[in-house]
Structure formats: structure tokens, C-alpha cells
């Protein structure tokens, strides 16, 4: 896609503002953490010795390897599961396809640590499924350790691969596969050699998100890794451990996480740079004709995967209606959990909804112009901005949160203690979503439209507002809703930044789960699911109309 070569203050202005905002709310707080990782024990000189020391410890090396394995494994499974499913959903007559698409994004809604708890209830050593299996003499499958972790992550985040890939398959012009078939390739060869390579950028972008979110997450391995070292968990513990707090080592581990993600981002960027396919389909590919067996098989596969991913939901909802005495679950039915919750969580629910909306708005207002400038006004500066705006993906929420406390608790800009700091941290963390959603939709809008507008006397800035924005709105709203949903389930930055009355629903859940009230935690999750369903259904409607793509 061609860039706009227009001489204008607009892209410069956007770039400048974006740099200022990112410098203030990303680089500055992160630098506080980075400096900690570079300080020698006396706290006066900067040195790389800490890196050598930490990497010299086998425990942390194992953590690094485990994290990378976990991320790669979850991404690989997401691709293996998600791509065939995406193809089925895009091209086969799946029974109840619209419903399926509507709920496919749902796994993203449930905070992953709640999902992990649900899996323990099912597949833990005394889990319901484990015991059922044991009672019929089958070996129990363990949810603990690397295989369990990988599965939980893959099931939680495969929609990141599925959703953009469905859109990508649908966007491949029919003539491509017709040409391939005409040249004598079989359907299968056509899939491998034409359709899959064209959809690959979308697949990879999704896989990258899975990788990054997996290695950044600490809530799930905290529960399920047992004593296998995981980088994010160790970093968290070194930052805030009751006994062994060691900011230097924690900084080193956090920075290792950042480096891993940045490396993954760069690899993906290099790969995509050489493969930028314009995939706006002139004629949408038709549904393939398959026999009853194929149809049933595909339907069972797709529904099976989505329902499997939704099992934690069912568990959580069921548990929320079961009675607890203290921390102990007893059989029966009750709405007591919800009664306790209403008392405790009406304010947090409003906080969550309000903060998520404010942060989504902020992330969009900043991310949209950035995405626009990146696609339409390429320059060396824009390249840096591109990398910078993707960096939040690479930063664990805890790390960014602590950076914010270090940076904004005193001095010339004080933010801690109110709602604004949470909104800003959320906006920064989810900025990449919005930048990507904006650039994805822009790739489908001909730049000559904007040139025509400018040529007719409308300035570049006004052209953006008056012409480009309305054309982008479908994709942008889709990105906004996904951002909103992701913020609603945010925990790791919130836990180090919230204060006083600004607790969110995830905080309520985390504390209830920690504090031996899983019933209340489940009730809170149930409420959150119900509340998030509404915008998700909205996204799904847009998905149908605008072929929303996350890439």
C-alpha cells in the first residue's frame, strides 16, 4: 500500500504528541524500572553485572526457557487449532455459524486467573473430572506443569488467532483459488500453497499476541506452575516478595520479558515487511460444497473447540450458585454469593465499567491517529513510533504499574491515588490493540481517496477527521470493544495501582479467590461475563458487517 507523500504539519503533530505521551507514560515509568535493573548493589553506578548474575542462576535460566516454551507452545496450539477452525468458519456450512462467531471471543473475557481456578476445580488432583476418571480406572491428566499451562493458555487465547484469520480467509479474492484450481492444484494443495500463505500475516499477528500475552501473564502460572520457574511469576515475586524483594533482579527479569517480546515483534515485522498482500476481495469466496460427513465433522470440531474453551465459564457460573462455608465448597444451590457480592461490589462494578470506557476512549483517541500516521506517512520517525507503540505489549502489567508508582507518586506530576492513573495505565497497555485495529482497516482504504480530498482543498488533518474516520469507523469500533473487554479483565497493573474506592471487579475476584471466598469470586466473574456479553455481541454484529481484523 502506498503512503501519502503529503507535506503537512498533521503527521508531524500526531507523531510529536504520540512521542510525548509515550515518553511520559511508557518510557519514563519503564526507565525507572530499567534503571533499577542496572544499578549495582551500592545503588550508585549503572552496570550490566546484574544481568550476568541473574542469568548465571540456573533457576532463572530455567524460568526464561519455560516462559519461552510456554509462549511458543500456546501460540503453536492456537495456530493449529485456530487456523482450520477459521477456514471452516469462513468457507464451510457450519451449523449455527453466526452463534459460534458470536461466542468465539468469549474466552478472552474471563480473567485468566479465574479460568485457571476453574481448571483446578475440574482437572486438579482432586478435580471433578480427575476423580470421575479415577473412579472408572482411567489415568488422571494433570493440569499442573507445562502441558496443563500450555493448554490453559491456548484455550484462553486462541480467539486472537481465530478472529483475524476468519477475516483473512474471507478477504481472499475468489479468483485466487480459481486460478490455482485451474492450474491443476487440488483443493488441499490450493489451501497449503495459496490460501494459507495469503492469510499467514493475519495468522502470525494473532500468534504473536498469544505468545506475548502468555509470557506476560502471571496469574495463571502463579496457580498452575507449582514449582516450575516462570519468568513473569519470578519477576513479580522479586518485585513484591514478602521476604526476598530484589528490585535489581526483578528489573532484570522484567527486562528479559520485554526483550523476548520485542524480539518476537521484530521477527514478525521483518517477515511481514516482505509479505504485504493486499487482500481486499472483489468477490467474496463462496461457501464450499461438502458432503454431510464433512459438514458434521467441521461443525463438531468448531463447536467442540469453542465449548471446550468455554468450560471454565460453565464451572464459574455453576460454582457461583453453590454454597460455601468459609472457604469450603458444599453441594447445594444458593444465591448467597450474589447477595454478598452486591454488598461488596456494586462500586467496583461501576469502577470497572467507567474506567474501561474512559481508558478505551483514550486509547482510541491516541491510537487511531498513530495508526493513521504509521500507514499513511511512513518515515524513519514513524518507524520508531511504530515499534514504540507496540512496546506496551511487551511489558508485564505489574512492571508498568510499579513504574507508574515510582514515576508519578510525587514530584511534578502526581497521578497515584485516583482513577486517572488506572485509566492511563489501561490506555497505555491496550494502545497496541487500537493502533493495530486502525492500521488494519486503513490498509483496506485506498489512499487516493484522501489525496482526492486534500487535492480538493481540505487540509490533511481535516481530511482525516471528515473523510477517513467515517470510513474507518467499523473497524475502529470493533477494536474499541475488544480493548474494552480486555481492560475489563485486567488485573496485574491494577493490583499495584488501585487505591481507596477505585477497586475494580478483577480486584474483587482476586481478593475473594485469595481470601478463601471462591463463591464470591465466581459470582463476580459471572456478573462480569453477563455485563461483557453485551458489547461482545455488538462486536460480533460488526464482525459480520465489516470483517473486523485484529491484525
Amino acid at each position: 500500500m502506498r503512503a501519502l507523500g503529503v507535506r503537512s504539519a498533521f503527521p508531524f503533530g500526531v507523531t510529536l504528541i504520540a512521542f510525548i505521551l509515550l515518553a511520559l507514560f511508557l518510557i519514563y515509568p519503564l526507565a525507572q524500572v530499567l534503571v533499577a535493573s542496572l544499578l549495582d548493589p551500592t545503588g550508585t553506578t549503572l552496570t550490566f553485572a546484574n544481568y550476568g548474575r541473574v542469568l548465571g542462576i540456573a533457576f532463572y535460566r530455567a524460568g526464561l526457557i519455560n516462559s519461552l516454551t510456554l509462549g511458543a507452545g500456546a501460540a503453536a496450539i492456537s495456530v493449529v487449532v485456530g487456523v482450520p477452525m477459521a477456514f471452516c468458519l469462513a468457507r464451510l456450512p457450519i451449523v449455527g455459524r453466526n452463534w459460534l462467531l458470536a461466542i468465539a471471543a468469549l474466552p478472552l473475557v474471563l480473567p485468566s486467573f479465574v479460568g485457571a481456578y476453574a481448571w483446578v476445580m475440574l482437572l486438579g488432583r482432586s478435580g471433578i473430572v480427575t476423580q470421575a476418571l479415577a473412579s472408572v480406572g482411567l489415568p488422571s491428566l494433570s493440569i499442573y506443569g507445562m502441558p496443563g499451562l500450555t493448554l490453559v493458555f491456548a484455550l484462553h487465547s486462541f480467539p486472537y488467532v481465530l478472529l483475524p484469520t476468519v477475516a483473512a480467509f474471507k478477504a481472499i479474492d475468489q479468483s485466487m483459488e480459481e486460478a490455482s484450481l485451474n492450474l491443476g492444484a487440488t483443493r488441499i494443495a490450493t489451501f497449503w500453497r495459496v490460501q494459507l500463505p495469503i492469510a499467514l500475516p493475519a495468522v502470525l499477528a494473532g500468534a504473536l499476541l498469544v505468545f506475548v500475552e502468555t509470557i506476560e501473564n502471571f496469574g495463571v502460572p502463579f496457580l498452575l506452575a507449582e514449582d516450575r520457574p516462570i519468568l513473569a511469576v519470578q519477576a513479580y515475586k522479586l518485585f513484591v516478595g514478602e521476604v526476598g524483594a530484589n528490585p535489581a533482579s526483578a528489573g532484570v527479569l522484567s527486562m528479559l520479558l520485554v526483550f523476548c517480546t520485542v524480539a518476537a515483534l521484530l521477527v514478525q515485522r521483518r517477515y511481514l515487511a516482505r509479505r504485504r498482500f493486499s487482500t481486499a476481495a472483489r468477490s467474496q469466496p463462496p461457501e464450499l460444497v461438502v458432503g454431510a460427513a464433512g459438514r458434521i465433522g467441521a461443525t463438531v470440531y468448531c463447536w467442540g473447540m469453542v465449548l471446550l474453551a468455554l468450560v471454565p465459564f460453565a464451572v464459574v457460573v455453576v460454582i457461583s450458585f453453590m454454597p460455601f462455608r468459609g472457604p469450603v465448597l458444599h453441594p447445594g444451590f444458593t444465591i448467597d454469593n450474589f447477595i454478598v457480592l452486591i454488598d461488596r461490589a456494586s462500586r467496583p462494578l461501576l469502577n470497572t465499567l467507567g474506567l474501561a470506557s474512559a481508558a478505551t476512549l483514550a486509547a482510541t483517541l491516541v491510537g487511531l491517529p498513530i495508526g493513521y500516521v504509521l500507514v499513511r506517512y511512513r518515515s524513519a520517525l514513524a518507524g520508531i513510533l511504530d515499534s514504540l507503540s507496540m512496546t506496551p505489549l511487551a511489558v508485564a502489567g505489574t512492571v508498568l504499574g510499579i513504574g507508574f508508582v515510582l514515576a508519578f507518586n510525587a514530584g511534578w506530576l502526581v497521578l497515584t491515588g485516583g482513577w486517572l492513573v488506572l485509566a492511563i495505565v489501561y490506555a497505555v497497555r491496550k494502545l497496541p490493540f487500537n493502533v493495530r485495529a486502525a492500521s488494519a482497516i486503513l490498509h483496506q482504504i485506498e489512499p487516493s481517496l484522501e489525496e482526492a480530498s486534500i487535492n480538493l482543498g481540505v487540509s490533511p488533518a481535516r481530511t482525516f477527521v471528515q473523510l477517513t474516520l467515517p470510513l474507518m469507523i467499523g473497524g475502529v469500533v470493533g477494536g474499541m470493544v475488544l480493548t474494552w473487554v480486555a481492560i475489563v479483565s485486567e488485573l496485574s497493573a491494577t493490583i499495584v495501582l488501585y487505591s481507596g474506592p477505585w477497586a475494580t471487579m478483577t480486584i474483587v475476584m482476586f481478593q475473594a479467590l485469595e481470601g478463601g471466598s471462591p463463591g464470591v469470586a465466581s459470582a463476580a466473574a459471572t456478573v462480569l461475563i453477563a455485563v461483557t456479553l453485551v458489547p461482545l455481541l455488538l462486536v460480533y454484529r460488526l464482525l459480520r458487517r465489516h470483517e473486523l481484523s485484529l491484525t
Partner: protein
Amino acid sequence: MTVNVGWFKTMAVGVLFLSVAAATAHAQKQVIVYTSNEDTLNSLVFAGFEKDTGIKVQPVAAGSGVLVRRLSAEKERPQGDVLWGISRSLLDTNRAYFQPYRSQNRDAIPAEFRDPDDLWIGNNLHVMVILQNTKLVPEADGPRQWADLLDKRLKGKIAFTDPVNSGAAFTTTTLLVGMFGGGEAGWGKVANLFTNAKILNKSSLVFQGVGQGEYSLGVSLEYAGYLWANNGAPVKVIYPAEGTVVQMEGCAVIKGGPNTTSAEAFVDYINRKDVREMIFAKTFRRPARQDVDLSHLPGGMPPLASIKQAPYDEKLWTEARAATLQRIQDVIVQTR
């Protein structure tokens, strides 16, 4: 243009909501409590305190490590009033962030459980115990002493907390090094114990795990065993025959916090005899004040005097903490 109008509407509604919420939050007298206690205990105490004093509690609940990090990060402009549910050694190392307060209940608390300068005061005591899931291990087959945990047949069945993240686990580990003969011999036996154990990230994972049947045995806190057992879980509390260690948890008034007077009221409230009894009845926290008669309260918890305590040099191990943690970590790596 319709697009912009929609945006501004959303934004206006959001800002309106947030400012209204912020305004109502400041209308009442309040106290901001940094608490590492769990939800149940928090809710119980905060509701009682509000009813009693009319002061609204704004809790910031997180692990004690997170709270202390926040405390030091916020030292220029403290955001909290009270720090509550923190171990003695952590209170001692962070004295710089507290301001002295002579509580009304000071004299009811034994001197060993309060700061000589009144910078902090003890609330409750944790006794380190072994928890046994009686559904997984028949009651009679359980361990009776620490040394029983070294049995090779228990491999993978014992839950232990990562000492990096838990003061209690650090204390237990170092206690056992001494008890198992000290020096290399002691460390060697601790390594044997760790070989049998799953080292979990957080102390709550240990007692939850034993309570839910994920692990047969757990090295954990006394109260948790009573809490789960009295609510119907198959959990038995074992006081090891060689003796164990008692860990104090306390609270402190944060220096320069926004509501110091309310903070002091909270410190007084939390150590009141009737309040301690109420807390015990619901959550089995053994009071630091020794004038509460446990035999009249539910649960059947033995008095402190009847529990054998092993000698433990807390000061020495606190000073050697960095090297010891490194050693523990090495042991963990070697035994995986």
C-alpha cells in the same frame, strides 16, 4: 458529524460518572487501610469498625510484599493510613515509614509483640503447623513431627510456600535448618524435605490446596487449618513434636498518611478484646493479647502455652537473609 458527537457523549458521560463517584468518596470521614489479610477477615473487621466508629474504610488489599513496595514508592506522599497484617520482621525493617502511636490496648499485649518505640503493635499470632488432608491420608497415618516429612514415600505430596514470597515459609525453613542439626547437615535434610515438596508461589495456595485435596500435606499456618476444618473440610492440624515457631502479625500507623486520627482509631479497634474474640470466632486468628480464653471460643484451639516452641534466633536469620535466600533458591533448583 455524528461520529464525533457520539464520542463526546461517551466521554462526557464517563467524566461525569467518575467525578460524581470521586465526590461521594470524599464526603465521609475515612481511613485507608493497606491490608495483606484476606477478604473474609477484611470484610468482617471493616464492617465492624465502620459500625462502631462511623469511619469508612477504604481498603487497599494486596500481598504484604506489594504493600511494602507501595509504601516505599509512596514515601514522599503517602497514600495510606494504616498498614495491617504484616509480619514482625517486615514491620521491623520498615520502621522508617511508620509514626509512633501508643495504643489503648498496648498494655494487654506482651512486650515481645510490640515495638519498644510503639511504631507498630502486634495483633495476632501464627503458629507454623503441618496440615493433613484426612481424606487423602488416613488420620492415624499422618506425620507427628517435622522429621516425618523427610520420608521418601511422601515425594510430591507436600505443599510448601516459596520462602522468597512468604515470611512464614522463610522462618520455617530456617527453623528446620537449625532443628535438623544446623550447618551443612541441616541444609542437607532441608534439601530432602524440598525434594518431597511442591514449592508453591503463595501461602494461601498451600492451605487451599490441602483443603481442596490437591495435596496430602502442607506446611502452613495454624488458623487456616482450623478455618477449613471447622467449615467442613477434611483437614487436621498437626503441631510437630519437636516444637515449632510462632510468627506475629501486626499493624502500624503510616507516617504522614492523610487520615492519621482515623488510623489511630483503627489500631485501637483492632486489638480490642471483644473484637479479637469476634475475629477469632469467624477466622481463627490467635490473638496477640493473652487475656482471651480460647477454650470458650469455637474450634478447640489449644492455648499458646500448651504448644511446644522450638528455639529460633529471628534476629540472626533476618540479618543473614540475602545469603540464606540464595541458598534456599539453590536448594530448590537442585531438588527439582
